[in-house]
């Protein structure tokens, strides 16, 4: 039995996600958007103030971020981290308290920044007196598509999201999953260059999730930039070129999925026989742990760069090494560890204050 708990894995993952402000913040020093940026955010801050108590709540704190054209960008964070706040500011639904942002080179204060934008809000709602084609026609025209072209695109996209056989069905009769699919079609019907999706997998069954993944990949192939928030980390891991992790309104990390899962936190496991009472060298005590199983001993090395040295040491101790297995951290482990680390940090800050 593997006695190594999930909590033991956390420090490795936390190291991999250690706060590196420069990773997220350096990109915002120049105030102008560069040509290859689909999204550029500079010093974006949002505070909410209650009308009754006048108490202010921080939604987002000095966010700097860049999303390159053509990439699929995952925006992660626990509930209340500020993901939806960011996406709503970018799409003009919220006004930032301070800071600036640009979509495809256009400042978000101008409505023209939304001409080539497709947006799917979290848990989208629609006019329930319209049918699918009418709704898609309407939103395509709002995004500047001429009438006849909008009608053709509406029919095509309704079919593309699997609702082509329900053209005349009014939206009040749609199920939650069908509404989510329609929302995706509405975000894509005018063939935008940038798509922002807030929890696109939410409310979908496994088939629906697969369809959404396919749609996102298809958009990437077309050169469309996709930025999306999600709690479904395996999907993020599968789809994204880069991810940003947001915690308590602050950007904790921006990195490629590969950098995160194969980064400093990557582990190596050594399955050995005949090493139950072997004393571990003190130099590696923080990085090498031992777990005793029924028929073997499992050594876990938290730093893959020491793999050869540890292997040589085990052999020199006449230990029978049965297998050496590099272990990837899952995004979920890294994410959970970062959240825990941030919570501990915040608690310390509160105590010291």
């Amino acid at each position, binding site marked *: 039995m593997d006695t190594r708990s999930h909590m033991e894995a956390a420090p490795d993952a936390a190291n991999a996600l250690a706060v590196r402000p420069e990773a997220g913040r350096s990109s915002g020093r120049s105030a102008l958007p560069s040509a290859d940026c689909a999204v550029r955010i500079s010093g974006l801050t949002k505070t909410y103030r209650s009308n009754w108590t006048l108490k202010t709540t921080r939604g987002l704190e000095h966010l700097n971020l860049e999303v390159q054209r053509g990439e699929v960008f995952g925006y992660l964070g626990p509930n209340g981290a500020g993901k939806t706040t960011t996406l709503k500011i970018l799409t003009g639904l919220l006004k930032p308290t301070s800071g600036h942002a640009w979509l495809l080179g256009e400042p978000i204060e101008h409505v023209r920044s939304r001409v080539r*934008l497709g947006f799917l809000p979290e848990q989208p709602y629609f006019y329930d*007196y*319209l049918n699918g084609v009418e709704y898609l026609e309407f939103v395509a025209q709002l995004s500047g598509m001429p009438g006849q072209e909008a009608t053709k695109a509406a029919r095509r996209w309704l079919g593309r999201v699997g609702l082509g056989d329900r053209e005349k069905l009014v939206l009040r009769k749609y199920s939650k999953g069908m509404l989510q699919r329609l929302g995706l079609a509405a975000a894509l019907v005018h063939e935008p260059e940038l798509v922002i999706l807030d929890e696109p997998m939410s409310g979908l069954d496994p088939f629906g999730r697969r369809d959404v993944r396919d749609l996102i990949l298809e958009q990437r192939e077309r050169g469309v930039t996709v930025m999306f928030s999600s709690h479904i980390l395996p999907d993020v891991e599968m789809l994204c070129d880069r991810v940003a992790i947001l915690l308590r309104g602050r950007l904790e990390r921006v990195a490629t999925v590969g950098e995160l899962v194969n980064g400093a936190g990557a582990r190596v496991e050594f399955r050995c026989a005949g090493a139950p009472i072997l004393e571990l060298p003190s130099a590696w005590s923080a990085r090498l742990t031992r777990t005793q199983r029924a028929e073997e001993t499992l050594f876990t090395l938290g730093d893959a760069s020491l793999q050869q040295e540890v292997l040589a040491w085990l052999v020199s101790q006449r230990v029978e090494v049965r297998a050496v297995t590099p272990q990837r951290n899952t995004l979920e482990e890294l994410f959970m560890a970062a959240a825990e680390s941030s919570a501990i940090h915040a608690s310390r800050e509160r105590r010291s204050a």
Partner: protein
Amino acid sequence: MNAVLIAQNTFREAIRDRVLAGMVVAGLVLLAIAQVARPLAMGEGVRLTVDLGLSSVTMLGLLVVMLVGTSLVAKEIERRTIFNLLSRPLPRPVYLIGKWAGLSGALWVVSAVLGFALWGVLALLGRGAYWAPIAQSVYLAGLELTVVTALAVMFSALSTPVLSSLYTLGFFLAGQWCDDLRTFALRAPDSLRHLLEFVANVLPNLSLFNMRTLAAVGETTTALHLSLASGYALLYCGCVLALGAAAFESRDFR
């Protein structure tokens, strides 16, 4: 262009909503009741029919504004359907203008249908020549409802449906007595006079849109009155919508 799209969609929503159809039916029922009650009017049956018919255009239209208009924007915010619109290249003032134009259009259609029904009844009573005063009255009622719709849309963009209803009703009632308020201001002490004049200027002068007394006796109003009323309605709607748009522009949709 986008204002037209929003207006078309709002018009479609209003038409598909059963409230409008209900109002038309209610208006026709009132006309029928007027015919039943006509023998009791001691020779004033035509007057009763015209009065009741024209009043029903205004009152039923007001009811539509109260039921639909005062929640027109608030409902979109509450149901979050507005997220799908304002995240597109749609300026917020254009959205408000579209909502106002769409509902106003639907009210013009209801007013026209009820006005036509009223003229039909009068024609059956041998008063087909009343078409001109009826048309003028319905036109003025349409303008009045357009002004009240602008107020409802503005309040709906800034407040809850219940409060919007109260504010709109308050403005409608106060607007009926705007001329009286102005007359009262002339007799009031200086300090109070300025305040009353200001209030009278801010309130919509809805008595400008009322020619029911003339129409009831088959008389028409002047072209100048119709032009002034049209100009005033346009100007007032413009001011109200500009005010609403300015406040709506900075609103957050959480």
